[in-house]
């Protein structure tokens, strides 16, 4: 029944669209890997078959979006559809890069109650949904369950437990207690900082948008970060080393996105498990535990960190075609979109209509992996999968609840905290000096 309604509406839109001109829209996508591009090309081809409009997919690395979008905006050459993350939502909406009304219309046409609540809440501003959420994931503490059990350690769900585990397990170079991020120009470092900040209740912006001058919780974060770096190997570390060392069995804990789930199961040759001679071994996956909620001394309840990807319709867009494409991607093409990397793309739209969980069901049956495929359920117990996915609904970001996401995004994009924390871990600043410097630099940043 649902299916037939969907088909009927689709046919109606098809009929309407084919009567108009066939246009080409340009879509910037952050999913740049060749396998994922191939899947997106299929979605685009299906869209062309259904509507007659062509889609030109342009891969843009996540770290390049800011520069490319700035240049394209200045040149009046923005794409029609722009795939972006949470920290660009409000800066782009406020600067006028995004046609927020067009996105709002798409969400209400698709049915706002068919979307998960968290991603919609993040994108709500000034009574509008400024960009259309497509998928999301929750950052996790990935840890060696076997070692934790053997040493009688509790799961790393709090600062205290993380400290205890590093104390007990750090034994370089055979085993590092943690692999922190120290490469300041990688977004990964800010993700780690934000996750642990939320965990101990520190936010750089107050509810009224001013810079938070209370350094109590910030100091707690910085103290922990110093210890994390002390228990890490040398080098400019980012996601690459933390994954490499964990897959090599040389790290007791790392913080990573769920994208590591298939690699842990030995399904990807470019990031193989190297704990023994069998790169397809499931042993490491079996010995791994996951924690999404972390609590710190300043926040007993703890917090999870989630990232949501959005499809924004830009100010330069061929609005109607762009809207149609986003709608198509979130209905007929949605299963395929999620299949690019199901372990890193949790559905934010549950089903084609309110109350339906069709897309969630489709997603749960998708195969993960690159070189070998297997459903997640074959590698991990259902309970683990449910826990990870549930993180998306509680996943938080700075400033979302207080409506200060715009200010928080400016702070994240400036990467001031990464820079100052690196100076601190280099031994140039004490913890309190670093905290004061962060506050001072944030104030200088927000002053203009």
């Amino acid at each position, binding site marked *: 029944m649902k299916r037939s309604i969907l088909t009927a509406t689709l046919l109606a839109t098809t009929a309407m669209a084919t*009567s108009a001109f066939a246009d080409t829209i340009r879509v910037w996508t952050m999913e740049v890997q060749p396998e994922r591009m191939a899947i997106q090309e299929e979605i685009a081809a299906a869209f062309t078959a259904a509507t007659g409009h062509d889609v030109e997919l342009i891969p843009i690395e996540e770290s390049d979006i800011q*520069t490319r979008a700035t240049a394209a905006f200045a040149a009046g050459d923005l794409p029609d559809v722009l795939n972006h993350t949470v920290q660009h939502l409000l800066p782009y909406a406020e600067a*006028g890069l995004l046609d927020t*009304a067009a996105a709002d219309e798409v969400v209400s046409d698709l049915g706002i109650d068919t979307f998960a609540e968290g991603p919609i809440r993040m994108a709500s501003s000034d009574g509008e949904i400024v960009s259309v959420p497509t998928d999301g994931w929750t950052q996790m503490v990935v840890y060696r369950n076997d070692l934790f059990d053997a040493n009688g350690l509790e799961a790393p769900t709090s600062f205290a437990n993380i400290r205890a585990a590093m104390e007990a397990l750090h034994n370089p170079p055979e085993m590092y207690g943690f692999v922190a991020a120290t490469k300041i120009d990688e977004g990964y470092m800010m993700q780690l900082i934000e996750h642990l900040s939320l965990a101990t209740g520190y936010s750089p912006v107050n509810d009224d948008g001013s810079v938070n001058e209370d350094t109590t919780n910030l100091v707690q974060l910085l103290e922990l970060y110093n210890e994390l770096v002390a228990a890490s*190997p*040398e080098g400019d570390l980012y996601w690459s080393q933390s994954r490499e060392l964990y897959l090599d069995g040389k790290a007791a804990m790392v913080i990573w996105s769920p994208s590591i789930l298939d690699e842990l199961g030995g399904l990807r040759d470019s990031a193989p498990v190297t704990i023994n001679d069998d790169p397809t071994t499931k042993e490491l996956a079996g010995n791994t535990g996951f924690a999404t909620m972390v609590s710190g001394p300043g926040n007993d309840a703890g917090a999870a960190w989630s990232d949501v990807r959005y499809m924004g319709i830009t100010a330069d867009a061929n609005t109607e075609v762009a809207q149609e494409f986003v709608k198509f991607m979130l209905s007929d093409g949605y299963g395929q979109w999620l299949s690019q990397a199901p372990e890193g793309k949790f559905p934010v739209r549950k089903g084609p209509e309110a109350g339906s969980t069709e897309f969630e069901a489709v997603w749960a049956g998708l195969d993960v992996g690159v070189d070998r495929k297997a459903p997640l359920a074959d590698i991990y117990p259902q309970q683990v999968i449910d826990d990870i996915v549930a993180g998306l609904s509680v996943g938080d970001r700075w400033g979302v609840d207080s409506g200060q996401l715009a200010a928080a995004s400016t702070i994240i994009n*400036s990467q001031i905290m990464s820079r100052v924390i690196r100076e601190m871990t*280099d031994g140039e600043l004490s913890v309190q000096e670093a905290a004061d*410097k962060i506050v001072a630099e944030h104030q200088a940043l927000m002053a203009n």
Partner: protein
Amino acid sequence: MSEQDTHQPRPPKGLGPLAKREMRFAYMLLLPTFLVVLSVVLFPLLANIWISFKPVTLGDLRPATILINERVMGDLEAVGDEADIRYRARNSSRKSAIADVVMTDTLPASLEVVRVDDRCELSELTLRCDLGDYEPGQREDILIGVKATGAWVAAPGNVKDTKPNFSLSAENILTNDDFTLDNFRKVFNASDFTTVLWASLYYTVAGTVGALVVGLFAAQLMNLTFRGRSFLRGLFLSPYVAPVIAVALAWVLLLDPGPGGTLNALLVQLGIIDGPINFLGQRVQEIRILGLTIHFPVALTVVIIFEIWRYFPLAMLFILARMQSMSKDIYEAAEIDGATPLQQFRFISLPQLMGIMAVLFLLRFIWTFNKFDDIFLLTGGAAGTRTLTVNVYEQAFAVSNLGAGAAVAVVVFIVLLFFSIIFFKFSPEDDA
């Protein structure tokens, strides 16, 4: 005699009228070229200086405008069906207002208009709506009620075929006369400005001198005749011609302090160092020599070595070309006089090379001071390698404060201008 002298015809001083006319004509022919070159060179420079005095952030790159979405709300399938044409207009900016918005559009002739919005008037088929002022982020709908006629049902049109036009006045920060010194204030007041400036100068001077000295030695070597010289010459050029992204990543891999880092593995195996050194990530290393403690900047020095390695071939090429144009006789004469090779180099080669070395120094100094990609690829500006150019990038793109980025760029320009003036005042004359 003297009388004769005064009447004697002299060669004309300066240019005659014909020559002058020819010269003017030649300049006129060249004028377009001058203009093009000037505009290509000067326009970006002036634009940069202009922006540095303006509070430009991401949203100011374009003036606010009205985004419009036009569609038919309802069905127009049978004669007499009524529907609304909805214009959904919004101010694209959430920060600046737009004044005096007037929208004009042409409606399809086959639709009968039954209602018009209060702010609009219809004459013939032309709709003109006086929408007044738009607050930042303001959005609203303009509804025009229409009724389908027989002509429409027979051949349904598309209201979007005619695009609405707007006349409006919006503030454009890029072109208005609103200037500020805030960008410069911010740049000079930044807590790390002096650190960044010193890092820049250290990087530039050491990188330039190093590239010149290594280039001089390489040229000296290549000036000899030996088997495989042309092959070696090509090999020496490879750092300069190889793509920067490839060589930078290769260096990052070689210098990696982790288990995959080649250089560290070698040094540890040879017993030269106890543990891996984080070449690109360590800011300072304390070294004690003769009771003195020196804070040695590790990452910055490695970045400088990279710079020297990458650009010595350029210096080598220039110096080698100059060396090969030197006459051999003078060396033979020196040999007969009993001059040692070192003396020959010091008193014959070096003076002749000073001219080209000076030009190279100027060029390399300017280029190195402006260098961005090498540092950015190697360290991303971490561990004390943040130079002014990395700072420009961070201000303009990470923080989206284009005004401040431009201000730093102006500082870079002034430093270089200052250097060039001093250089031209004191540079040695080329004797060749």
